[in-house]
């Protein structure tokens, strides 16, 4: 049964001739909004990473640095939420409106490389760089879900590892994470450096000279993007956690 034909048109009037020029207010807002702290984060970490080997120079010759490759899985809490519409707006729409939307990365494989520089017996400075890629999953309160492209997550951390027990180490670190998503979804206007901290526990397995181990970590970081901020979202917090298999490639096998 033919229901109808619809023509949705416009009755344009040239109110502003083509002489209008310059940036729109919209793009000006998109470029602003980063705090002094956020701008300072990258300029802090580069010298910090360079400085650590200098500070530990006297001890390196004695114990040597260690390279650790970590392969595992990472999961995350939600990155963003949308409350959609007020009660009055829902009433005016006259059709069921979602009660809310959540978006976050799906659990994914993650790779990390860490350089450990012994400071003294049982204590090491640690520089770590990690990468993970996972689909960005969106879920509505009513149960609908879809994927909105892929997320790339890069992190850089600097911290300290303490050999707590003969085969058990604990560590704490701080650093920054950066998300990217091909300029889609709430990354349409780019991403930001997000400062964060990490705590971790690692256990050396009793074979292969203790070079293989298992590590569990939890990271907490601040999160927002220019597009979310423009839509009215304040900065929030995100938690990432995961488990890794670790392998040391040179340097000592113990603490």
């Amino acid at each position, binding site marked *: 049964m033919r*229901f109808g034909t619809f023509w*949705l048109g416009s009755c344009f009037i040239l109110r502003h001739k083509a002489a209008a020029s310059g940036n729109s207010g*919209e793009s000006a807002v998109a470029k602003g909004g980063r705090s002094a702290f956020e701008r300072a984060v990258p300029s802090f970490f580069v010298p910090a990473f360079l400085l650590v080997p200098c500070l530990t120079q006297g001890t390196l010759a004695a114990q040597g640095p260690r390279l650790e490759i970590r392969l595992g899985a990472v999961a995350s809490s939600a990155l*963003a939420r949308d409350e959609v519409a007020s009660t009055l707006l829902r009433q005016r729409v006259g059709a069921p409106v979602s009660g809310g939307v959540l978006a976050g990365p799906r659990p994914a494989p993650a790779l990390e490389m860490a350089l450990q520089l012994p400071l003294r017996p049982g204590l090491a400075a640690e520089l770590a760089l990690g990468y993970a890629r996972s689909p960005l999953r969106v879920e509505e309160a009513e149960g609908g879900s879809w994927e909105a492209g892929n997320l790339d997550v890069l992190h850089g951390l600097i911290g300290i590892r303490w050999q707590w027990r003969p085969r058990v180490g604990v560590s704490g670190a701080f650093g920054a994470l950066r998300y990217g998503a091909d300029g889609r979804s709430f990354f349409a206007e780019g991403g930001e450096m997000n400062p964060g901290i990490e705590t971790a526990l690692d256990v050396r397995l009793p074979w292969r000279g203790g070079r293989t181990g298992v590590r569990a970590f939890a990271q907490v970081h601040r999160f927002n993007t220019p597009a979310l901020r423009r839509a009215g979202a304040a900065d929030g*917090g995100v938690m990432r956690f995961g488990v890794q298999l670790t392998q040391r490639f040179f340097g000592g096998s113990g603490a």
Partner: protein
Amino acid sequence: MSGAFRQVLGVVALAGMGLAGACNAPTIPERRLDDAYAFSLPTAIGDTLVLRWPQGSVVRVWSADTDAGAPLRAAYEAGAALWNARALFGEYRLVAAAAPAEADVLLAWAPGPLPVDTEACPPLTRRGTTTFCLREQDGSKRLDVFPLLGGQASGQVRMLVTFLRESGAPPADLAALVAHELGHVLGLTRHSPNALDLMYESPGMPPTLSLRDAATVQVLYHTRADIVP
């Protein structure tokens, strides 16, 4: 290991756990009554229907100006970028189709050759018009498919957007015209009453999406649809 260092580690661990408990993702607050305008399609029998593409879908748009930099193609790319930037949760994505057979939507000049048969669903000749035909089948409402001409394989074109050439030349406000019609393509089937919005019946130049335009399309894509193309 010094006691001080243990205390530092303890503090870091406690801070991590505390922050984890306080984790609250950035939240876009609910849009209020004045933040959005009506978007549902009024029908001849007096009710309204919500039309939108399925969440997470890619809407393929073919432009009659196939050369990069040609007026219609350039206007389409600018307009699609405006709307795509407001799909904050990837609800839709307008992408260029390489051929009419791959397209969901056609952009074309009027008068001008069309790659589809419009006899059953003819477009109006106005400055900018989005045309689609609704069919009820098995209790659900769908958009008719415009059959492709020239014996091509069955296409999936469900919307036809035509633009009137003035004295054979593209209109000066083509960019605004195309961006506005793409709003209709996405499901904003009504005009905004506010002259500052792109979906006002005669939007200004250069085309920009107002906060109301952005909020309205975001609410639309989280409203249950009556018609899914």
